[in-house]
């Protein structure tokens, strides 16, 4: 089965603004390497988890997948077409098929539009239904995310965090997408409300056969709701595979550290320290494998040469 949406060796750099001393001293231009050759693919009806700590590039990847960032190298393909080359009707079709749900639904909803107007706008732009049927469709969407019909007449500030995230999901669903990219959609929510939204994602994904890219730093959630997972560290995918296999037998030392660092819900004395050292700065990444300064099993070679992701989904010289 060919992938619905895929990133192929995507690179993305962000230039660091130069200040006066930089210019006077003629220091070289610097750049943050947010993504260094990232490849991931998601198929119809599948949930792909992307997991990693701050600065690993997971949000940049999300934005590259929905065409909010243009890759510096590599490409993102939707149904086989490079999305950077899309124009006109093909672009409109892509925009409709691939939707994003953001972490902070308050920042991504227009505070001056009622929820009904926000949803109706999406329906109108993409001519999803006839003008006369818009109101009915808005109500159907609210029902789909388990919000009352009365929500349509209210503004975003009248809702709690969990309800706002439901609105964000309804907005994404309005255009009948085939892929949803969700960037930390439940990170700002309390556990009890988080469970409601996680269940909603799982239900919708199954019922509508969506491809879901679920980006999070929470390993428990990834384990719970994804089919496949890609673990990122400093702009690279270090390990990828079916979620169950990856959690049962993690192969990359970073994946192992990450899994063992998650506090278990079973009370007891903590295990050995998961990993030493700090997260490196993406401005000044370590040479070779970016994880080598923290890696318990690093060899001299690791400091020199960066391993690529092999056919088995592992980027480690010692795997």
């Amino acid at each position, binding site marked *: 089965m060919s992938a619905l949406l895929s990133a192929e060796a995507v690179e993305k750099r962000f230039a660091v603004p130069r200040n006066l001393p930089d210019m006077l001293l003629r220091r070289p231009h610097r750049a943050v390497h947010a993504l260094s050759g990232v490849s991931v693919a998601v198929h119809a009806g599948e949930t792909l988890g992307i997991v990693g700590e701050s600065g690993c590039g997971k949000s940049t990847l999300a934005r590259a997948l929905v065409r909010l960032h243009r890759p510096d190298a590599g490409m993102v393909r939707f149904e086989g077409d490079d999305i950077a080359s899309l124009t006109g009707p093909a672009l409109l079709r892509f925009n409709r098929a691939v939707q994003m749900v953001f972490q902070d639904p308050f920042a991504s909803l227009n505070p001056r539009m009622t929820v009904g107007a926000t949803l109706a706008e999406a329906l109108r732009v993409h001519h999803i239904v006839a003008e006369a049927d818009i109101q009915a469709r808005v109500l159907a969407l609210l029902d789909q995310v388990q919000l009352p019909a009365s929500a349509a007449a209210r503004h975003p500030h009248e809702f709690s965090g969990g309800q706002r995230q439901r609105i964000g999901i309804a907005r994404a669903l309005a255009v009948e997408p085939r892929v949803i990219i969700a960037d930390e959609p439940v990170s700002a929510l309390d556990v*009890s409300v988080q469970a409601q939204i996680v269940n909603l994602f799982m239900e919708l994904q199954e019922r509508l056969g969506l491809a879901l890219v679920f980006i999070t730093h929470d390993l428990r*959630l990834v384990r719970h709701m994804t089919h496949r997972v890609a673990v990122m560290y400093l702009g690279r995918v270090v390990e990828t595979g079916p979620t169950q296999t990856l959690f049962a037998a993690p192969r990359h030392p970073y994946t192992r550290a990450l899994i063992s660092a998650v506090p278990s819900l*079973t009370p007891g004395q903590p295990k050995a320290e998961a990993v030493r050292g700090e*997260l490196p700065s993406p401005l000044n990444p370590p040479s070779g494998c970016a994880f080598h300064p923290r890696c318990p099993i690093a060899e001299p070679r690791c400091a020199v040469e960066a391993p690529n992701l092999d056919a088995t989904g592992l980027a480690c010289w010692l795997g």
Partner: protein
Amino acid sequence: MSLVVRDLRVVFNTRSGPVWAVDGVDLEVAPGSVLGLVGESGSGKSVTLRAIARLLHGHAKVSGAVSWQGEDVLAMPPDRLRRLRGAEIGIVFQEPMAALNPVLSIGQQIDESLVAHTVLDTKSRRARALELLDLVGISAGATRLGQYPHEFSGGMRQRAMIAIALASAPKLLLADEPTTALDVTIQDQILRLLLRLKDELGMALVLVTHDLGVVAQTCERVSVMYAGRVCETGKVSEVFAHPRHAYTQALLRAMPGEQIGAKLVPIPGQAPRLDAPSPGCAFQPRCTAREPICATQRPSFTELATRRFACHAGARL
């Protein structure tokens, strides 16, 4: 017990009326032990912590009793309070960047604490500062002392905060979500550090968190808070294995756990408003185990061995 809190209440008088943020909290902390204070947003856990250290502003009305080694904290005169805070009770906040002074070097900030709470001279204060950085796992201490908070990473800032809190060798450390802003591998290091320091220095630790996993891995006892009240207190192993309050049970079930792909059991509805307390149990509108009595009568505490819980349905959970 070194810290005993009885019937602590905090009311904020806001323009739209009073808000009962903490509504009758009882806590005990034994020397050298770790108490977890766990709850969701708005449950009153941070306000409780701040009320214990008397860090709340004047518009907060605090009542009840906070006793520190037999002394009444709420009635302490300002100069005694100043010696208590920092010297006997250290505090670590969630956002080290907001709690540290951005225009003073880390060394100056540790020194401030040493000047205030010790009688050391300049030279021995510097030696002690280096010792403290070493203790919290910051290497190259001599260089680090001269650096400013913005030159530290998030995890290092939290370590520096802990070093400042430890400067006067406190007997109790109050930590308000100390790892919430940190990545999981760094959280692991900081929690481990806190536990090690607790053992080495014989401190007691109160850890406020929303993460049940953090409680399971670091605390001996836990108090679960909801809507400004403690609903259940007990040994972590017992509370997790067999919760006696419907909210504790619901919270544990809402966490993604061992059963992969299974539907989570969300808690229906939303956190209650604190400006209009109900006569019954605060969790009752969202509770699936509720009985008619729950809406009308606030459950009183049941004591069962080392456990205390306030739930009408507690016996049959």
